[in-house]
């Protein structure tokens, strides 16, 4: 019953997308908004809740991620309402976009709620394939090239994930049989896995596949170029929803890997994420347009989420994840207005707004820009405090305290490069360039307000208490 409720809006959206009528646009948007209702219902149910046998099980972690994703989905839908006012998009492309958006949701629901490695992979693959067409909605040569690029590199990444899953399954099959695919059973029997090395190999390969999908080293610019070539709601969807499906998989796999051999996992992930942030910080320093800037900043934040998670600070990781999931799509959506006078015009992008709508727009965008560089009271400020604290606490239990302090100092230097760049960009946007009038539409402003309210809710004591109780 619950599964039908969850899938129903997506299936209706898929069906309506075939109707060639102008009013279908509003039905599609309405159906997309309705997706939130069953997810809220699921969120309020007691956990764990079996949705489809042992294949799909809702717990606090996955319902939190799904709820965040559905709120981002609302923002994306609102931005889509005025997409044709900013860019050239045909009615047919618009309907097709929603058709694939519906398939994307089905894949997403399966991957996020899965308690089964195989079902997780199937859902993720479905979500990945459906996004390929969304990139192509923008009829330019660059988007065509990037759609193929995404198809091919995404396929390699997802194949690596499956490759790792097969190895992990092979490592646990002697004790669990066909049930070795289930996350909960693997977690319960992690210490009994007869071939831990095989499991770790599988985990490492799966992780690399997931990291490639999130634009980590060595594929840092891959995602940024794809998002640059797509329409801005697609970029918002990538950063706020698709990455959620990937990261929830990482959370599940790493929970098991932590029990198999924590030290191996920690060193591998820590070095990988530091390397990613090192490269990304310099790429951010050189970024010359909003889309690439926000995309690379997204990679940095996902690397921090991963780092906090493996450092024994799931609270910090989940808080950082929630803040990233709201902030980044908000900024991507605002790009539609910021770039209305030109793609590479950063100077003066925050000038030329008239009336209440315009004032509220530039005020919110300013807040979002300063929030992603972790200025208090941004949720990212608190998550980073908790995260770095947890890293030191982890190091205290080992013999590598000095190495950890060195690593944290190095990280802080890299983060300060990013901080400096964002502040410089903000000043250029606000105080330099010519003042050209820009139009802000109600729907996109409403989307930004929703994201701002969601960020405030993230900081409420009840939310923080909930995040503490997730793991």
């Amino acid at each position, binding site marked *: 019953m619950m599964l039908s409720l969850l899938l129903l809006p997506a299936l209706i959206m898929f069906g309506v997308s075939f109707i060639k009528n102008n009013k279908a646009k509003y039905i599609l948007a309405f159906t997309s908004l309705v997706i939130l209702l069953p997810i809220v219902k699921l969120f309020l149910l007691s956990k764990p809740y079996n949705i489809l046998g042992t294949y799909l099980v809702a717990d606090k972690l996955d319902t939190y991620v799904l709820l965040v994703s559905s709120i981002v989905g609302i923002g994306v839908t609102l931005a889509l309402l005025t997409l044709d006012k900013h860019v050239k998009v045909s009615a047919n492309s618009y309907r097709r976009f929603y058709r694939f958006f519906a398939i994307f949701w089905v894949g997403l629901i399966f991957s996020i709620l899965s308690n089964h490695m195989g079902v997780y992979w*199937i859902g993720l693959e479905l979500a990945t394939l*459906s996004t390929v067409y969304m990139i192509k909605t923008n009829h330019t040569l660059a988007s065509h090239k990037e759609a193929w690029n995404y198809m*091919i590199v995404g396929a390699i990444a997802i194949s690596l994930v499956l490759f790792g899953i097969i190895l992990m399954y092979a490592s646990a099959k002697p004790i669990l049989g066909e049930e070795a*695919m289930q996350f909960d059973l693997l977690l319960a029997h992690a210490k009994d896995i007869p071939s831990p090395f095989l499991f770790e190999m599988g985990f490492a390969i799966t992780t690399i596949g997931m990291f490639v999908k999130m634009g980590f080293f060595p594929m840092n610019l891959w995602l940024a170029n794809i998002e640059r070539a797509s329409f801005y709601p697609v970029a918002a969807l990538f950063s706020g929803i698709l990455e959620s499906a990937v990261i929830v998989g990482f959370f599940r796999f790493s929970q098991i890997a932590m029990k198999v051999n924590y030290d191996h996992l920690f060193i591998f992930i820590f070095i990988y994420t530091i390397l990613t942030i090192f490269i990304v910080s310099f790429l951010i320093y050189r970024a010359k347009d909003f889309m690439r800037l926000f995309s690379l900043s997204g990679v940095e934040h996902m690397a921090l989420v991963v780092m906090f998670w493996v450092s024994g600070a799931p609270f910090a990781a989940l808080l950082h994840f929630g803040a990233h999931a709201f902030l980044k799509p908000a900024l991507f959506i605002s790009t539609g207005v910021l770039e209305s006078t030109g793609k590479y015009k950063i100077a003066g992008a925050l000038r030329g707004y008239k009336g209440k709508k315009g004032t509220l727009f530039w005020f919110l965008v300013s807040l979002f820009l300063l929030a992603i560089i972790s200025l208090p009271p941004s949720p990212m400020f608190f998550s980073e405090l908790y995260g770095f604290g947890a890293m030191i606490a982890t190091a205290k239990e080992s013999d590598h305290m000095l190495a950890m302090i060195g690593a944290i100092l190095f990280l802080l230097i890299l983060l300060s490069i990013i901080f400096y760049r964002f502040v410089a960009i903000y000043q250029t946007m606000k105080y330099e360039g010519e003042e050209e009038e820009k139009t802000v539409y109600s729907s996109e402003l409403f989307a930004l307000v929703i994201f701002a309210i969601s960020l405030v809710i993230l900081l409420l004591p009840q939310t923080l208490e909930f995040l503490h109780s997730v793991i």
Partner: protein
Amino acid sequence: MVDFLIGLFLASLIVALFTTRLYRLLLWYSLNSLTLGLLALSIGRDIDDNAMIITGVITIIIKAIGIPYILKNLSQKFNFVRQITPEIKVQYAIMLIPAILVFTFYLSEPIVHMIHTNANYVAISISSLFLSLLLMMEHKHVAPKIIGFLSMENSLFLLGVTATNGMPMLVELGIFFDLLMAIVVINLLFHKEEISL
């Protein structure tokens, strides 16, 4: 029988790497999938696993017949370039491919000790994965890259069959479904390209 089929699987992939014509590449992919399907049937019969036998039959129908047929139709519909010369010269490929095979056997040495059934086949499936990646890299055109992606999926299927004696039926069916979805997306990408040009 299994040894013969797995040898044929690897051989068809190696030959595909040297192919310079699109239709012949499709033929080698079809043969590669056929040997994979027969392999699943053979292992499934040996271990009395009905799920693997069903998977083998579906593999033959979808991958050995269906997908090459659809891709051939697509190539005719959208006038694909049929002369597909690999970027890596033959003399280098001759050295590179055995090097990959040897390297993979060396790389998979620690894993092979942990898998008790069909241990060497695991090494072959990993090397097939690398060779499929090479197929994707050595071509400029999109069509051979798609074949490379599909061959990579075949290698993973082989790994699933040999390392774990088959994945759960639900997962196998899901993978087939995703593969069909990939073909739909590929078709759409070509279709939109034609409209926009």
